[in-house]
């Protein structure tokens, strides 16, 4: 009986420790959110979403151009990163054992490990210097290069979860190999791939370093892809290092909006995943 009593005590202790650990794991996020709301909510009016930055000393102003700029740059990044990443992931999953697949997987991991500022420099050298102009395209390309390995890996993992028996069943029905890959395998893995893609989008939406000398930032309204464009992380950076109190408040508000965008994307990705397991199981 004594052993059982001791086991109960140890069990209760360990359970408590895991609860505490779980609580601590969520604390930073809650803390950041709380702090952002407290600091940023004041500057966050309708004006923030509708107007462009005003000069120092002038009240009001917002980050409408930066919000739209972030959407434009992330849109360009997705247009590059998603098709290439999904295609590469499909290739890796379908040609698992080959030498080329091994090489591509390795290089993709290396690309994933590169500091994002290096990709910024690369994009600057390739897309800014030759044209003598910072541009939304250059920023989008830099972010797209960050997305590619993320999407590649997510796609490959999701496809490898598709049972080989489905592929066999399609082949046995007379599906050509490419059609099996696209209409059966890729389609079955799609919810997982969408989740991976949204995570990648959320990740690059918050990137600052690759945009510093590609998209560059812009105090004025611009949606042209060949012109310098504003982006939330850049705007936050510029405002945060400035000496003006009202700009600091705006930076907090910008951070709050950026986090909200990322959260919305994360929640949507969770929802997509849930839909997959909700209807699919038997």
């Amino acid at each position, binding site marked *: 009986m004594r052993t059982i009593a001791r086991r109960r005590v140890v069990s209760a202790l360990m359970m408590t420790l895991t609860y505490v650990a779980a609580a601590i794991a969520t604390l930073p996020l809650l803390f950041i959110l709380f702090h952002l709301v407290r600091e940023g909510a004041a500057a966050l009016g309708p004006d923030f979403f509708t107007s462009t930055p005003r000069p120092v000393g002038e009240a009001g102003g917002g980050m409408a151009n930066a919000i739209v700029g972030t959407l434009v740059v992330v849109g360009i990044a997705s247009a590059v990163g998603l098709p290439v990443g999904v295609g590469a992931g499909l290739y890796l999953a379908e040609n698992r054992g080959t030498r080329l697949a091994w090489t591509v997987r390795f290089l993709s991991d290396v690309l994933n490990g590169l500091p994002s500022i290096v990709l910024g420099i690369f994009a600057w050298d390739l897309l800014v210097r030759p044209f003598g102009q910072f541009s939304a395209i250059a920023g989008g390309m830099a972010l797209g290069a960050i997305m590619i390995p993320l999407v590649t890996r997510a796609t490959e993992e999701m496809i490898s979860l598709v049972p080989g028996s489905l592929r066999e*069943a399609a082949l046995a029905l*007379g599906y050509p190999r490419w*059609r099996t890959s696209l209409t059966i395998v890729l389609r079955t893995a799609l919810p997982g791939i969408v989740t991976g893609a949204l995570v990648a989008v959320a990740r690059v939406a918050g990137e600052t370093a690759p945009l510093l000398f590609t998209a560059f930032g812009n105090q004025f309204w611009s949606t042209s892809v060949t012109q310098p464009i504003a982006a939330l992380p850049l705007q936050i950076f510029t405002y945060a290092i400035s000496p003006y109190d009202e700009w600091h408040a705006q930076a907090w508000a910008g951070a709050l909006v950026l986090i909200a965008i990322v959260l919305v994307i994360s929640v949507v990705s969770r929802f997509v995943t849930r839909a997959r397991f909700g209807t*699919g199981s038997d």
Partner: protein
Amino acid sequence: MTEVATRDAASTASRPAEHAARLFTESLDALFGEAHVVRDVNLRFDDRQVTAIIGPSGCGKSTLLRCLNRMHETVPTARVRGRVLLAGADGTPQDVYTRGVDAIAVRRRVGMVFQRPTPFPTLSVRDNVAAGLRVAPGGMPPRREVDRIVEDALRRAALWDEVKDRLRESATGLSGGQQQRLCIARAIATRPPVLLLDEPTASLDPISTQKVEELVYELRRELTVVIVTHNMQQAARVSDRTAFMLAGELVEVAPTSTLFTSPGDARTEAYITGRFG
């Protein structure tokens, strides 16, 4: 092996005229790299007959089956030697491994159902059955025609009454036995002349097994059926002819009642009386 080939050929001469050979193998060898898993098999599968292939695990019976619709070659390092002759609509046999014959075209004519049910999880019941039509040579028929073919295939697979109100629902919501009959419906929807079944009831409960067996028995009216099974009682119940394989070789093939009551080979007798395997 020549002895077996002779036996099989001899029975060819005496069999009733309505059961023409639909499919036969000549000196068929199958390999995975250096592993020789099917050795010099000469076997005939008659039209509108069920042929069962029995034998212990690893004897090569599934591999032999997968050679018949060229699924064997989808595995890296897999190789095939010898011939597999499939009779066309006019009865002329053609080697499915001849240069110029497309594996995809062969698989459209030789349907296959696997050990575990493999419904496509993203497709509805109806679209699962219609999946083969999508890649048919003429392209997808009009919707109304597809509906008719789907209903017909489900009826032939003895599944229509159970799923007619759930055609738009996901196929993964069906029970295991229903899923397996759905896979049979999917395989026969395109009206292939041959249907291969690779241990189709291995993952099913006894009641579902019985339904699938009854279905196999019915399907012989329209198809050449080849069934690989672990279960000798099943072979005895559903098949007209039974082939016994051991270590990659075809030991004996005979009408099912003959093979189970008076086997010609001592190894067959040892196997069916349960002394090994």
